[in-house]
């Protein structure tokens, strides 16, 4: 019996909301050149990352010292076959930028995934269980939030050493508090919403309430936050590379390329211009997409902008 009453309440759940909103989102996408551009840019980067082997003329670490430090093909010293020139080891800049999309996206995507997984767990526990648990989690979260993010990342990166998995874990952990705060706030708000109160009253198990009633409502704000944090992580990866703390030097990440090219900025500008451009364009695309998602998925913000 209780189940049926419970089901009767379900139309308030977001499955339906999404169905209602989708056309709005598509409508906005088509009428907002910014959002469209964002979608195109992000799709390009994702496709580049997926099909790097097919797109790149060379392997990311392929090359000969004899071909090192050549400028773009249209310049006087340019080398046939190396469109955007070569780096210090004779590796093809274009190929490394293409493979770099993989690293940057992996850092951004999996970093955000990990951060949101940890953040959602913590935030839900804090918001739903309340009391001591909330106090404990909130105080840790607030402490980490008030701490300069980068300083924390630098210290942890120094400890764990350079590899892709470590970078992802570092970002996942250090960025989790941002998600925890958002989720906790949302859960506190939703806990008093009628259908949740009803479900609790009807004795639904806690996990069921959390998973079936609260989580779906969090999807909108979460996805929005994830997008913005993803572009932030692509930035931070570049920053860590700048300090020599990101993925190992042979890995073709945009940050690594930029950090290496930086040493020759005044002499061999092509070594750093293209990875820099890739970072900027990706961040640009992701942000445009984020703006659109925020408008579409977060009804409270829909009016603005």
């Amino acid at each position, binding site marked *: 019996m209780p189940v049926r009453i419970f089901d009767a309440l379900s139309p308030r759940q977001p499955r339906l909301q999404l169905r209602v909103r989708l056309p709005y989102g598509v409508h906005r996408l088509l009428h907002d050149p910014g959002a469209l551009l964002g979608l195109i840019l992000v799709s390009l980067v994702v496709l580049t990352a997926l099909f790097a082997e097919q797109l790149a003329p060379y392997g990311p670490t392929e090359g000969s*010292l004899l071909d090192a430090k050549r400028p773009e093909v249209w310049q006087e010293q340019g080398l046939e076959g190396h469109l955007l020139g070569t780096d210090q*080891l004779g590796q093809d800049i274009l190929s490394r930028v293409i493979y770099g999309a993989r690293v940057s996206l992996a850092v951004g995507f999996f970093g955000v995934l990990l951060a949101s997984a940890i953040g959602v767990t913590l935030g839900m526990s804090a918001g739903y269980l309340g009391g001591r648990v909330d106090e404990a989690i909130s105080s840790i979260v607030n402490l980490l939030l008030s701490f300069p993010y980068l300083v924390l990342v630098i210290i942890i990166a*120094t400890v764990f050493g350079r590899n892709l998995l470590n970078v992802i874990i570092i970002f996942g952990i250090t960025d989790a508090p941002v998600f925890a705060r958002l989720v906790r706030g949302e859960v506190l708000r939703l806990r008093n919403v009628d259908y949740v109160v009803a479900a609790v009253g009807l004795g639904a198990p806690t996990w069921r309430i959390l998973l079936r009633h609260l989580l779906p409502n969090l999807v909108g704000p979460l996805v929005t936050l994830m997008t913005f944090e993803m572009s932030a992580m692509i930035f931070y990866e570049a920053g860590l590379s700048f300090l020599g703390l990101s993925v*190992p030097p*042979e890995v073709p990440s945009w940050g690594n390329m930029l950090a290496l090219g930086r*040493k*020759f900025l*005044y002499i061999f500008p092509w070594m750093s211009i293209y990875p820099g451009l890739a970072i900027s364009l990706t961040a640009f695309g992701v942000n445009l997409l984020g703006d659109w998602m925020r408008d579409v998925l977060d009804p409270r913000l829909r009016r603005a902008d």
Partner: protein
Amino acid sequence: MRSTILILLALLLSAPALLVQAQPSGELVIALPNDPTALYIANASDVTTIAVTRQLYDGLLWLDDKGSLHPGLAERWEISDDSTQYTFYLREGVTFHNGEPFTAEAIVAAWEYGLTPGNEYPQYYSSAESVEVLDDFTVRVTTPEPDALFVIDLVEGWFALPPRYLEEVGLEGFQRAPVGTGPFMLEEWVPGDRIVMRAYPDYWNPGEPKVERVVLRVIPDASTRVAAIQTGEVDIVNRLNVEQATLLESNADVRVISYPNDRVFYVAFKNLNSGMGTPIESRQVRQAFNYAINRPGILQALFGGHGQLATGFTAIGNLGYDPELKPYPYDPQRARELLAEAGYGDGFSIGLTCPADAYTNINEVCLTIQRDLAAVGVDVELQFLTTSKFWSEPNYGSTGPMFVDGWSTPAGEALPRIEGAHYPGLYYNSWVDDGITAYVDQLASTIDREERAALYRELSRYLFDDPPFVYLYTLNIFEATTSRVTGYRPLPTETWYLNQVAVDA
């Protein structure tokens, strides 16, 4: 020397006009890559700190950029027949910057404070057994046994310290306001920003220093240093790479200086910890690697050819360097043959550790080595470690069976690095072999230079035929000065004395 000084003094006294001319003038601005860690020599462990402290203090002796020894605070010295006692006759009339007179007690103070537990460089001082004051200006230092490198300890450490002042302010007070007998006195130290020094008017060597003010500016970023000399904001920058040097050469107001540095770069094989039981214990494999790595290519492509291929740990300019010894040629075919002879015709896989960003282009060198060894069928598992991890364990315990590093030694003697890398029981040894140990023992107790040179040549052959390393290269160092600077002569150890440096107004 003394008579020249007397003549000079007489000249100066009789000709006031000359005296006016000799006044130091102008301001010299030098860019430092990092902040000195201390202005106290026993705690000076990096090149920058050593270079800066040298301007404030004087040692008993000093070495110039050509490697010749000169009298400093000691006007002359005698060595006993058994080569264990050094008697120094000290310069009279020298004063510290605070007015305290310099006597033999200052040398005792240098020794005693140098031995303070917790110092970073105790071994310059621990090599002496006793320091006796014979009179105010005579001091006798005894070493437990003949020690060929003791003179280097004296040059690098043993700077005169003012005993009374130290007593008064303590070591910590001294670090804040150091006082020496050197050509410059400390005026201001803003950590992380600048060190300002002023010419010491009562310096014992008349006519030195030549500049009135020296400002050392800390600029950690290499690109910024290059920018700063282009705009004329600094007069001297060091640690330039080839590309930066080339860029600056096109600037008419800047002069680029180049000189060979003593640091030998190498790929080490370990027959300790992680290297034990791996194929590199085979001599043929080690020889094969020496043939397989395209060292001429690396030197050309990454360093513009500005360096020399190394034939061993005794580098060009070191005592006993053997010009007859020719570097291993780049010969992958020969490498493959040797590997097959050793029973590794199908290749194998081995770990190589690289100290990330520790030296110019070192990451790229490691990547190239990996590429070259892959070409002869050896699969290199490359690992990059931060410098603090890289050097954290005894015997390079945190690295794989092979690692890349560089080692410089002071004063043109290869012994410190040979000993350091091979002598049993030392912290950073990586390859221990009874033959090498015997040579090192012999070298350390032989004082005669000719005999030592011969020993070095023999040892070089030994280390060449059964190589514990792939010897890579030594590099030329690039520095640049603005055209108004004269008399700047950096030493092969990347340090300098500013006594003779002048600037046009």
